[in-house]
């Protein structure tokens, strides 16, 4: 059975690119446009196996979404990887402390992204 991956990014183009890379590798994907929608999607679908999440988004940013997700104990094991233009060490530290599992700087390489998700869902 293929794993379902949630892609949270306010850019439709990034969602398209990430979705394409993951679907070609055999994953199912679902999308959300910001942290609020991402949080709703996680709570509504227990089959989501991993999350790829932008940082800078309207309404709720990615770091706040990770904190909100991880504040609910039942998602302690849900792997979340941040995919962002940000390379600022303090933000990376915040993500790690919030419970994210990885950090990728855009533009991403499809092979690298897929390998990361395969590792986290295996």
């Amino acid at each position, binding site marked *: 059975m293929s794993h379902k991956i949630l892609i949270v990014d*306010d850019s*439709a183009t990034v969602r398209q690119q990430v979705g394409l*890379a993951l679907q070609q590798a055999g994953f199912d994907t679902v999308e959300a446009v910001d942290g609020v929608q991402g949080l709703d999607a996680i709570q509504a679908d227990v089959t989501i196996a991993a999350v790829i999440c932008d940082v800078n988004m309207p309404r709720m940013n990615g770091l706040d979404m990770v904190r909100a997700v991880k504040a609910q104990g039942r998602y302690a094991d849900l792997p979340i990887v941040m995919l962002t233009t940000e*390379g600022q060490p303090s933000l990376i530290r915040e993500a790690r402390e919030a419970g994210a*599992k990885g*950090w990728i700087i855009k533009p991403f390489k499809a092979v690298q992204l897929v390998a990361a998700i395969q590792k986290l869902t295996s």
Partner: protein
Amino acid sequence: MRGRVSGAFEREREMSIENQNLLRQLCVESCQELFEAYDVDLVIEDIEQPETCGLVGFIGFTNPELRGAFALAIERPPVAMGVEAANASDWVGELSNQLLGRFKNKLIGYGVILEMSTPLAMSGREISWITEFSHDNTIQFGSSNGAVIVYTDFEISSELELELVREPESAAMAEGELLFF
């Protein structure tokens, strides 16, 4: 070293030549590296009259000592991962986001950390800059993918001196890098 916050901001034309040249150079490098990641080589062109473009992404940034915005105008969006973007306006907005991300990551080496806004985008026909207002802060590139123009708007604290405190590659993660926690 980083300057104090003075409250006195200088527009791009009034800032020191050193700061002006450095910010421009970081912007040029950021733009060239970004497009290279999408297999598009950019070459700086002299500007008499900037090319007109149909897609423009805007993004702002702020810091107690440096604030401003970039506008990234392109004739055609680069193809990424072999697929044309379904929404060209969204794509140019995301490219402006990635451009500022690179610029921000370079500035971290100078001890300046910017807060980024979320990007905006617009599409139209023959969008052009008015050169008498923007010539000094417009960078035009030629490429196999058409013209790429970056308009920069900087306001900088009069007391900020931009000096390299750490090599950017050791100060911030590089683009394309993956880090597992």
